[in-house]
C-alpha cells in the first residue's frame, strides 16, 4: 500500500488525530467510495481521484456512527462475520422458515444483505477486511426479502418493539412494475398503513428524534426485472439503448414516491451515473454504487463467509484481482463486485448514521436536510438527454426529456440522474456540529384536485396542459402528483410539472417501461398514478402549477422485449394510440414547511 501524506494529514497527525494513511483495515485502500485516489478496486481500471463520499475529516475526528442503530432490511446478514460482529447489537430477526437458524439470526440466503451491511458498518481499524462509512454504528439485520409479509415489514421497519430504536433503515430493494398502479390510500388500507407507519416512525422513533428510511432507486436504466421477465427496449439486441432514456424511471415504483423514503441513485468511480441506475425527479442524492468490478470498479465490502458461498468463491479465481481465495482474501470473506443502487443506499445510510452521531440532538429530518444542503454536484457538464422524434406534421423535433443540471428558483441545483448530488460527509458533519435545528416542522397539504379533460395530441411538442392554483404558502420540500389520464400507449408520454416560479420538472420520462398495456388491453391509461419531484425544493408553493403531458411518439409500431431466458425471448409490439390521449384529472399535495 502506497502511503501518502498531504498537508491535511500532517495537520491531523499534529493534533494527534489518526491519518487515513495509517488505516489498519487491509482492504480499505481499495474502497474508493470512501477515499478515491484513483485506485482500481481490484478491477481492470481506475476511477477519478476525489470522486467519493469525502470522508477523511470525519474519519480523522473518529466520527463513525457511535450510538446510532442501523437496520439492514435485506436478504439477511451474517451477523457473525468477522468484520461485522463487533458492531452487531441485539434485535436482528429471522423471518424465514426452515432455515435451521434461530429466530434472532437473520439467515442471509443470498449474500446481498451481508454486503450491504459491510458498506454501512463494517468495523473500522480492526486489522480486518474493510471499513464501513459508519464503522462504529450499531447494526441489526432482517431477512425481510425472504418472507415479505406485512407482519415482517412492520417488525423490520420500526413499527413494533423489535425495531423501535432504529434510526436508519436501509432498504436496498424495490420492485419495478410494467403496469400503472392506482395509488389511493383513501380506499386501500395497505397503502394507508404504509404511509402512516413511515410517517410516524420518521417523526417519532427513538424518543422523538425520528428515523430516516433510505431507499435504492432501482437498477433499471438499461432494462429491469418485473418479476417474471426482464423488460428490455425493442432494439436492445441490435445494440440500441432506448434512445438514451431510462427503461425504469424511479417514479414508476410508488414506494420511491413516498416522501419518507430517501431515494438514492448510483454513481461510478468517475462520479457519473452508473450504467444501470434508475433515475427520476424523486431522487434525493446519488451515492457511489460502482460498476461490475471486472472491467470497472465496484464496491469492496463484506461477503458471505468462506469460499463456497456469496459473490467471492473458489470458482471465481481470475475474474478480478480479489476473488477466488487470493492472497488479499484467502477466506473469501470479502467481495469487490458488489454494486447497484443497493450499494448507493447503504453508503447514504452510513453517511446519515455518521452525521447523526456527530450531533445526537439533531432530528432525522434535520439530518436528511443537511445531507441535501451539503450534497456535491457531480458530472457537472452532463448535457441531459434530448429525444428527437417525428411529429404528426412529419417534422423532426426535439424534446428535452432529461435536463442538464438546473438551478431552481430557490438556488438548489438538481439533476434527475443525481438529485441534489453526491453526499459529502465531511461537509454535512461540519454543519451538523454547528447547529441543533435545520428545518421547521414538516407540514403536508391535503390532496387538491383539478378536473382537466384536456387532449394530448399525438406526436406533438404542444402537449396537453392543466393548471392548478395553490394558495398554500409553504416552502416546498417535495411535490406529489396523482394523475388520471387516458392513453393507449403510455411509454409515448412525458409528464411534466412546472412550478409558479417557472421551474420545470419531468416527472416521468418517455420510452419508459410501463408497457403493461401490451399484455393487458384493459389498461386504458393512468388511474391516480402517483409521481413525485424534489426539484422544487426551497421554492414557495403559492401560485399556478402546470401539469403537462407530451406525446413523443407517432410511430405506428413500437415494441419491447420480454426476456425470460435465452430460450424464451419475446418481441412484444405496442400499437400507436388511435385517438389522442386525454388528461382527465390530477391531484397534488405538497410536503414542506
Amino acid at each position, binding site marked *: 500500500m502506497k502511503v501518502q501524506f498531504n498537508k491535511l494529514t500532517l495537520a491531523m497527525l499534529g493534533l494527534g488525530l489518526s491519518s487515513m494513511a495509517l488505516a489498519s483495515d487491509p482492504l480499505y485502500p481499495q474502497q474508493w467510495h470512501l477515499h478515491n485516489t484513483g485506485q482500481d478496486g481490484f478491477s481492470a481500471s481506475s476511477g477519478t481521484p476525489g470522486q467519493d463520499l469525502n470522508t477523511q475529516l470525519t474519519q480523522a475526528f473518529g466520527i463513525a456512527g457511535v450510538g446510532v442503530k442501523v437496520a439492514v432490511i435485506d436478504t439477511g446478514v451474517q451477523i457473525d462475520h468477522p468484520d461485522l460482529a463487533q458492531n452487531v447489537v441485539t434485535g436482528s430477526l429471522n423471518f424465514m422458515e426452515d432455515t435451521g437458524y434461530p429466530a434472532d439470526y437473520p439467515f442471509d440466503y443470498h449474500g446481498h444483505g451481508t454486503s450491504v451491511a459491510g458498506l454501512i458498518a463494517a468495523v473500522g481499524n480492526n486489522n480486518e477486511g474493510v471499513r464501513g462509512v459508519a464503522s462504529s454504528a450499531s447494526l441489526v439485520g432482517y431477512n425481510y426479502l425472504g418472507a415479505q409479509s406485512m407482519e415482517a415489514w412492520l417488525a423490520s421497519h420500526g413499527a413494533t418493539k423489535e425495531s423501535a430504536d432504529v434510526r436508519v433503515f436501509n432498504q436496498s430493494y424495490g420492485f419495478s412494475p410494467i403496469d400503472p398502479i392506482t395509488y389511493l390510500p383513501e380506499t386501500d388500507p395497505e397503502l394507508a398503513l404504509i404511509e*402512516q407507519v413511515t410517517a410516524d416512525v420518521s417523526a417519532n422513533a427513538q424518543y422523538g428524534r425520528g428515523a430516516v428510511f433510505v431507499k435504492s432507486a432501482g437498477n433499471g436504466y438499461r432494462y429491469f426485472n418485473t418479476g417474471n421477465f426482464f423488460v428490455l427496449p425493442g432494439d436492445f439486441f441490435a445494440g440500441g439503448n432506448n434512445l438514451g432514456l431510462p427503461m425504469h424511471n424511479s417514479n414508476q415504483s410508488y414506494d420511491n414516491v413516498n416522501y419518507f423514503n430517501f431515494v438514492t441513485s448510483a454513481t461510478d468511480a468517475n462520479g457519473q451515473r452508473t450504467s444501470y441506475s434508475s433515475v427520476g425527479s424523486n431522487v434525493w442524492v446519488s451515492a457511489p454504487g460502482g460498476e461490475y468490478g471486472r472491467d470497472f470498479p465496484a464496491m469492496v465490502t463484506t461477503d458471505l463467509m468462506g469460499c463456497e458461498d456469496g459473490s467471492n468463491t473458489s470458482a471465481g479465481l481470475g475474474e478480478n484481482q480479489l476473488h477466488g481465495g487470493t492472497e488479499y482474501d484467502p477466506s473469501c470473506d470479502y467481495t469487490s463486485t458488489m454494486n447497484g443502487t443497493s450499494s448507493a443506499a447503504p453508503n447514504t445510510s452510513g453517511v446519515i448514521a455518521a452525521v447523526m452521531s456527530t450531533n445526537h440532538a439533531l432530528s432525522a429530518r434535520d439530518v436528511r436536510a443537511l445531507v441535501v444542503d451539503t450534497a456535491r454536484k457531480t458530472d457537472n457538464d452532463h448535457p441531459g438527454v434530448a429525444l428527437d422524434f417525428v411529429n404528426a406534421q412529419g417534422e423532426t423535433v426535439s424534446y428535452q426529456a432529461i435536463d442538464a443540471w438546473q438551478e431552481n428558483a430557490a438556488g438548489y441545483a438538481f439533476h434527475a440522474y443525481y438529485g441534489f448530488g453526491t453526499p459529502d460527509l465531511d461537509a454535512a458533519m461540519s454543519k451538523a456540529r454547528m447547529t441543533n435545528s435545520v428545518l421547521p416542522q414538516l407540514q403536508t397539504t391535503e390532496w387538491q384536485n383539478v378536473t382537466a379533460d384536456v387532449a394530448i395530441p399525438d406526436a406533438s411538442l404542444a402537449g396537453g396542459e392543466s393548471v392548478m392554483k395553490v394558495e398554500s404558502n409553504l416552502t416546498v420540500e417535495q411535490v406529489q402528483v396523482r394523475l388520471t389520464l387516458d392513453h393507449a400507449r403510455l411509454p409515448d408520454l412525458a409528464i411534466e410539472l412546472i412550478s409558479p416560479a417557472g421551474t420545470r420538472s419531468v416527472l416521468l420520462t418517455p420510452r419508459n417501461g410501463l408497457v403493461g398495456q401490451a399484455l393487458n388491453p384493459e389498461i386504458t391509461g393512468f388511474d391516480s398514478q402517483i409521481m413525485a419531484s424534489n426539484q422544487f425544493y426551497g421554492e414557495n408553493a403559492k401560485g399556478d402549477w402546470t401539469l403537462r403531458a407530451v406525446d413523443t411518439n407517432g410511430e405506428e409500431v413500437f415494441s419491447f422485449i420480454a426476456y425470460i431466458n435465452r430460450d424464451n425471448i419475446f418481441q412484444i409490439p405496442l400499437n400507436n394510440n388511435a385517438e389522442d390521449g386525454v388528461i382527465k384529472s390530477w391531484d397534488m399535495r405538497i410536503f414542506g414547511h
Partner: protein
Amino acid sequence: MLKVTLTSLAILASGSALAAANGHLKELAVPVQIEQSQTVEVNGQTYQRIITQATGQEVADTIALFAGDQVAQGAFNQVSKATGTFFVAVTPNTDVKALAKDLGLTLVFTNGETAVLRASEDANLLQVSDVLRNDSRVDSVKIELSRNKNKPE
C-alpha cells in the same frame, strides 16, 4: 392463460451483444404452468386459485381462499400467497381490539386508523373479508397477498 398471443422470436442477436447482455441478465424460470385452478375474486380482482393435491378436491369445489393458498394472475401467471392477514381501515374512534375480538380475529398491529388482523388457520378468507366489509366499524378491507415482489437492487 396468456391474454394475448406472443410471438416467440428467436432473436438473431450477435453473439457479443447477447453475451454482453447475458453477463448481467439472469436466466429466469419460465412461468408456472397451472394444472388445475379455480377462479376467485380477491380484493376486487380476478385470480386463479391454484388447486394442488394439498388443497384437496373437496375444498376445490368450494369458492374459498385459505391462508397458504397460492393464486395466480396476469399473462405470466404471477403467483401470490394468501398470508391469512387483512388490512383494515376503520371508522373514527373505533375500538380495534374490540372489533378483532368480536370477529374472532387476532390483532397484529394498529395505529388507530388502520389495522392488520389475522384470521385463524382454517378460516375462509373470502368469508372473513365479507364479514369485515359488512361491519359498520370498517371502511375498507384488503386481503394480504404476498408475492415477494421486492428484489434486492
